[in-house]
């Protein structure tokens, strides 16, 4: 049997030599049969070799469960080679799902207690890799003992095992917390690093631990300072930076301890400034430390000057030749653009440069950031840059870029003409990528700018004459020509080049649109209606128009057919009313996005059975009433949603998600409530694989002098949504920036309807009980689109 069974290396050779999947399978099946036989009655001295082979084929994807028991046997053997392979097998084949995994607990216990370092190391490593909660409870005492072992080799592993145990069994925090103080005096980098990791874990799991460890902030500051100034040893340096792993870990812990805590933050300020200015960033190691420093500075209550320094460091990162560093800079700046807006503005030129990045994940972030940085003073320059980007950007960014430009134009347009020009340019460049409401917005805009009617119709006519394929553009142009055709033919408009247009040309163009296979049904509707309107705007006889209209009376498209028939009837039987009916449209009141859609629909569907014009009322009832799912006074459910989103609202994140591989842009947080120092913030996550799922994390923080207790947050959403409130992290928000209470809301939105959210908060504060009910305004659109 030893002869026909292969050695590991030979097996690997043979598998690699297999020319087909079938051949490989054959080799492996044959060998597995040998392995099984060997497990049954082979030489125990060779068991480890057999298991090694099995582990190899397991990595290739083949089943290896019959090796689980062998792992146990090998671990129990006194030979080191057996234990080495046995423990490896346990880590690869056993996990807490199998009952078998508990059987190694005893072996691990024995190995932890016998004196050979290497063996103790194996046991600890295995425990920290696959130790289940039961195993952790059983072995906690052993590990605790090993934290005081003389050998740093064992201590460093024991500390990290303790980290794992706490993750699995949070109650074990009590066991491992006391020894941390002593371990912080370690000189051995590995043990110290593990200790910092352990303390970090403890603090993140327990507000009491967090409070407790604030005392060690000065000590941590000292350790880091020593590392940075004198350096512990070159053995731990990378590219001249002292133990960057340790530095980063300390900085992360400082971040957690300094968060929301004025005193701790203050004691770190100097050190952070020191690290920020002294770290050599010629290589990645230094940049990694600097990056962590920046993350810490912006997360704690740091001095204003320090924050600006942090943002400037990120700005410098943007100029780094290493694209990885540019990536983290862009991501971080995006997170800061709201809170530290003016500091980030200073780096606008660099950000705009990053639009030219060949790597799409960078240019996407640069786009988001650029859009967030547009304001009234830089809108012209920025729009120009963004339009330049729009021309050449990758397809999947085009929609976001176009939408972004349009929104920025809407918010900051210096003049109406500029606004119209900008929209026109965007529609021309990326018409097929703009959102549906672009057409409505533009017609609304033009309609409201009487002085620009002539200008607009000429520009649009020229654009249309050149290209009838961009649907939104065609629709707007058709509408405009229909409305203002008379101005088109008038001949004089100073702002555009002189345009001589004949009536016949205009009609011919609209007919082309009607007939083109590129035109969407809606577009053809626009064109037909425009033609009809021209029958009252132009001076010629209307034979051509009448002809077209009558032809379309038998069009297969029902919508067009209906219109044509009605228009035909208008010509034949109601000609005396025609002029009045086709009069220029008055401006429609602009409500929120939903109202716009109503307006657009009503325009398209303006059948002539009702006397025109029909002003539409702001439609709010379409927006699902929140249906007082909570007791309490209903909010302004009759008013239309606000037109202008609040300044910190939606400028950044218009990014409708195009295709899968690129990750969704982070949605901005929203402060929804503040009263006497208690604040409630919402953060939003749309997990990439599930487009209908929205996760909201509500975080309650308390900056006041009094504790907030009995805190309960309830939520309600419209009927088509499904809401699941997960258990909150607690019901007390301690005073003065104590550990916040968080709660996750899972919202399923299968209809992709606009989200509405009503919250009800009840709590006790300053001896009074408080109840607040309110609807959340300014929810970012990315939360449901």
């Amino acid at each position: 049997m030893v002869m026909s069974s292969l050695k590991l290396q030979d097996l690997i050779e043979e598998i690699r030599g297999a020319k087909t999947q079938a051949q490989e399978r054959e080799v492996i099946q044959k060998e597995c049969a040998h392995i099984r036989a060997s497990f049954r009655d082979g030489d125990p001295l060779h068991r480890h070799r057999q298991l090694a082979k099995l582990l190899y084929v397991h990595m290739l994807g083949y089943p290896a469960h019959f090796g689980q028991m062998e792992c146990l046997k090998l671990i129990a053997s006194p030979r080191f080679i057996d234990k080495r392979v046995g423990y490896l097998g346990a880590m690869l084949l056993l996990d807490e799902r199998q009952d078998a995994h508990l059987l190694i607990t005893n072996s691990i216990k024995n190995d932890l207690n016998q004196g050979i370092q290497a063996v103790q190391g194996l046991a600890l490593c295995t425990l920290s890799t696959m130790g289940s909660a039961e195993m952790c409870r059983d072995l906690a005492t052993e590990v605790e003992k090993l934290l005081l072992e003389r050998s740093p080799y064992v201590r460093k592993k024991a500390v990290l095992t303790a980290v794992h145990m706490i993750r699995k069994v949070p109650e074990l925090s009590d066991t491992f917390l006391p020894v941390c103080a002593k371990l912080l005096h370690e000189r051995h980098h590995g043990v110290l690093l593990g200790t910092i990791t352990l303390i970090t874990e403890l603090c993140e799991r327990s507000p009491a631990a967090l409070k407790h460890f604030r005392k060690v902030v000065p000590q941590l500051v000292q350790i880091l300072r020593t590392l940075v100034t004198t350096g512990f040893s070159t053995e731990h340096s990378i590219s001249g930076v002292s133990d960057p792993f340790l530095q980063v870990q300390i900085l992360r812990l400082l971040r957690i301890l300094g968060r929301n805590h004025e005193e701790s933050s203050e004691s770190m300020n100097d050190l952070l400034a020191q690290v920020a200015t002294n770290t050599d960033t010629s290589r990645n190691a230094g940049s990694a430390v600097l990056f962590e420093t920046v993350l810490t500075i912006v997360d704690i209550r740091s001095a204003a000057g320090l924050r600006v320094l942090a943002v400037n460091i990120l700005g410098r990162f943007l100029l780094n030749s290493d694209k990885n560093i540019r990536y983290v800079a862009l991501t971080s700046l995006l997170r800061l653009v709201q809170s530290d807006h003016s500091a980030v503005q200073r780096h606008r030129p660099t950000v705009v440069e990053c639009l030219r990045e060949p790597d799409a994940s960078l240019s996407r972030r640069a786009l988001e950031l650029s859009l967030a940085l547009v304001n009234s003073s830089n809108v012209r320059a920025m729009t120009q840059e963004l339009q330049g980007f729009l021309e050449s950007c990758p397809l999947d960014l085009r929609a976001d870029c176009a939408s972004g430009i349009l929104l920025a134009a809407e918010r900051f347009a210096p003049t109406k003409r500029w606004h119209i020009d900008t929209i026109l340019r965007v529609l021309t460049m990326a018409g097929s990528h703009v959102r549906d409401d672009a057409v409505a917005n533009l017609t609304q805009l033009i309609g409201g700018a009487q002085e620009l009617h002539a200008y607009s119709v000429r520009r649009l006519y020229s654009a249309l004459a050149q290209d009838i394929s961009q649907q939104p553009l065609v629709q707007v142009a058709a509408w405009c020509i229909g409305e203002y055709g008379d101005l088109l033919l008038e001949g004089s408009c100073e702002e555009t080049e002189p345009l001589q247009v004949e009536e016949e040309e205009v009609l011919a163009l609209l007919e082309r649109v009607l007939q083109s296979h590129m035109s969407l049904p809606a577009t053809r509707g626009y064109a037909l209606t425009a033609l009809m309107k021209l029958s009252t705007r132009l001076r010629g006889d209307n034979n051509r128009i009448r002809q077209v209209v009558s032809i379309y009376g038998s069009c297969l498209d029902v919508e067009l057919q209906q219109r044509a028939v009605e228009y035909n009837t208008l010509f034949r039987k109601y000609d005396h009313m025609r002029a009045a009916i086709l009069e220029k449209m008055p401006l429609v009141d602009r409500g929120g996005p939903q109202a716009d859609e109503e307006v657009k629909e009503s325009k398209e569907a303006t059948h002539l059975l009702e006397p025109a014009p029909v002003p539409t009322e702001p439609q709010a009832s379409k927006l699902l009433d929140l249906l007082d799912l909570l007791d309490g006074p209903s909010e302004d459910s009759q008013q239309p949603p606000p037109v202008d989103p609040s300044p910190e609202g939606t400028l950044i994140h218009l990014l409708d998600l195009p295709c899968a591989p690129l990750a969704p842009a982070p949605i901005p947080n929203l402060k929804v409530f503040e009263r006497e120092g208690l604040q409630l913030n919402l953060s939003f996550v749309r997990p990439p694989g599930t487009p209908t799922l929205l996760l909201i994390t509500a975080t309650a923080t308390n900056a006041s002098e009094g504790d907030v207790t009995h805190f309960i947050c309830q939520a309600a959403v419209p009927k088509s949504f499904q809401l699941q409130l997960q258990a909150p992290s607690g019901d007390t928000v301690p005073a003065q920036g104590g550990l916040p209470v968080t709660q996750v809301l899972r919202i399923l939105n299968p209809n992709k309807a606009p989200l509405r959210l009503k919250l009800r908060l009840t709590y006790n504060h300053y001896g009074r009980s408080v109840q607040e009910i309110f609807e959340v305004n300014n929810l970012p659109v990315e939360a449901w689109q």
Partner: protein
Amino acid sequence: MKGRSEEPWPGGSMRFMLLFSRQGKLRLQKWYLATSDKERKKMVRELMQVVLARKPKMCSFLEWRDLKVVYKRYASLYFCCAIEGQDNELITLELIHRYVELLDKYFGSVCELDIIFNFEKAYFILDEFLMGGDVQDTSKKSVLKAIEQADLLQEEDESPRSVLEEMGLA
């Protein structure tokens, strides 16, 4: 015992590390969370596809599912780590590089073949460097020394008798 799904835990930590070739062959997988074999296979397949589709000029970071992925190609092997959202990607790159240096020192100018034919050693080395996804020792010297000592222990155990046996001399 019912299988438990892994629960997400706070605090930066590595979820798993993968090594695979340009042809999509897995060379090492270290998981720092409990997941079923089936789920792991799915994740590996998916992630490999995503990473292998990246062009050479692209940056080393990408977002996948709810994790950040840091990857780097060394010759014919991709080293790929999935980390939590709060983690520092740049230091993870250093971590990957350190591991490669360790392999390099151990094998002497390491190449993919070394990892293929000595996969257990690759695991042993990784387990001396990281534990539970966290760095346990920041000194190259110290890690390599530990491996060396373990190798010696291993050799002692492969008692002289069996070596002679294999040589056919006993």
